[in-house]
């Protein structure tokens, strides 16, 4: 009885974390499912049970599908640049013999990740700006008269321009992580391969790549999950425009709930984001539980 009491008293250590999580993370998550089955008129305050109507409306809504496609496009480009691009880049940087240069380059590449997406987004808003922006002026200098784009103002370029900014902001972060993973590979493995006559390219494919494979897989999952949570950069640079072409699920949820005052619709979008990110998180868990590369 005494031990039981003592053990229960130990719960006090985890109590603050548990209470915070239960009230502000798990409870709202459950409430969100409830909200998504309601037709909720904010002005009259009336709430009516609507079953799956919100979901039906959602899947019939073209902006929802534009948002979803934009998230996918975001995920694809981020995997290309921030996973595979960063992996190659990290391997290049780590192949430099001077550790001082290695450190300097890693630091420079990371700096945009330290500043907020808001600052980076505003900065690129100006870089893309047709009149005073760097991009048009630089292109004008190379090929006069051919480039005069309002990069964020045209449906054809806006989404890719936003994603390009986020690659600029984020590639240094994943490069740093890959650099750490590559540093953990024992030097003997590279030396042995070099003695066998393997050049730098072959060593990358035969030594580096297999040994950072788990890390790469994990980064793909983290990156794709992150792409479905995008909000800040879109909000700052385009707010979803022009003509709803740059909405992602996050901004469309915000707009549905807090601008168009349709909480039920917003909650249904929340459920979609939840299902996608939870699926990826489960894959992540399964992935990390598997045998890790030992060395």
């Amino acid at each position: 009885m005494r031990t039981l009491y003592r053990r229960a008293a130990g719960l006090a250590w985890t109590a603050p974390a548990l209470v915070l999580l239960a009230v502000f993370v798990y409870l709202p998550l459950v409430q969100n499912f409830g909200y998504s089955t309601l037709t909720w008129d904010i002005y009259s305050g009336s709430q009516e049970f609507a079953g799956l109507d919100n979901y039906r409306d959602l899947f019939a809504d073209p902006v929802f599908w534009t948002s979803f496609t934009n998230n996918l496009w975001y995920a694809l480009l981020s995997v290309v640049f921030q996973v595979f691009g960063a992996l190659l880049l990290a391997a290049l940087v780590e192949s430099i013999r001077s550790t001082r240069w290695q450190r300097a380059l890693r630091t420079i590449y990371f700096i945009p990740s330290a500043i907020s997406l808001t600052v980076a987004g505003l900065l690129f808003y100006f870089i893309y700006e047709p009149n005073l922006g760097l991009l048009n002026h630089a292109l004008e200098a190379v090929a006069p008269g051919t480039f005069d784009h309002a990069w964020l103002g045209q449906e054809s370029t806006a989404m890719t321009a936003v994603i390009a900014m986020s690659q600029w902001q984020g590639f240094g972060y994943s490069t740093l992580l890959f650099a750490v993973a590559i540093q953990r590979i024992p030097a003997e493995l590279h030396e042995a391969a070099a003695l066998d006559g393997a050049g730098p390219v072959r060593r990358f494919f035969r030594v580096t790549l297999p040994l950072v494979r788990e890390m790469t897989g994990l980064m793909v999952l983290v990156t794709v999950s992150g792409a479905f949570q995008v909000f800040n950069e879109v909000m700052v640079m385009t707010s979803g425009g022009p003509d709803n072409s740059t909405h992602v699920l996050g901004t469309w949820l915000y707009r549905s709930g807090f601008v168009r005052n349709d909480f039920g619709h917003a909650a249904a979008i929340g459920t979609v984001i939840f299902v996608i990110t939870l699926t990826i998180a489960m894959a992540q868990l399964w992935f990390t539980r598997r045998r890790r590369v030992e060395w």
Partner: protein
Amino acid sequence: MVSRLGFLGVIARLFMWAFLLGLAVVVLYPLLWMVLNGFKTNAELFGNPFALPTGIDFGNYRDAWNRGVSGYLATSVLVTVTSTVATVFISAWAAYGLTRVDIPFNKVLTAVILGGLMLTPTVALVPLVRMFQSIGLYNSFWALLILYTAFRVPFTTFLIRAYMIDLPREVDEAAQIDGAGRWTAFWRIILPMCKPIITSTVLLHVLFAWNEYLFAMVFTNGSDVQTLPVGLTSLMSKHGTDFPVVFAGMVIAAVPVVFLFLFGQRYIVKGLADGVGK
């Protein structure tokens, strides 16, 4: 060296250096441009964007400061500091309980706390707004403090827990023999031993809280409780044509975290490396 690399090797090295340095320029030039634009007049800004400012005049910074940036900065500092302290302590407590105290349902509790890692803030947004409105904390400093803490406790606990697991058991036994209670053992022995990971989690949380936008934007609408990221966007919409002032504000928001990163790099890298496997 050159002879061993061969001619092709030298060419390849040259290309590699050109690429790596070119990329460094692509990263640094926009940041330099941002800083320079903070010193320009509006006319200069709309002239040749590559031109240097005619002089170093801090007028735009003064303007930005007086048009609300001082207030946003104060809020950002307050929210960042308080949420960092709250998050790191609550997480360290939880990590201690989960790793070094014999508590019932340990596995379940660990899963519940670390499971929070899987949940995205966006999903809980609508219910959270309703909740904070009904408890009267909407549009207050408290909303941000509570949310930043609640949503970051899982990640921070995860990092500290992983570190505490590896501390030797004998430490706790020695503390008990010396007559130290749980509380003393935590404060005097375990926490000091966790200093490296605590430093990492503090820095990572500061980077997060300083830059956070979604909660800050949705849960605050009065300029007296807005943080820098949200304040900058309202500076932009309010003084939309006075761009150099906006640039000055951006520099004020960016400089502290860049320095934080440069000085705490080792700990940030360590924390990130440990955390990616979440």
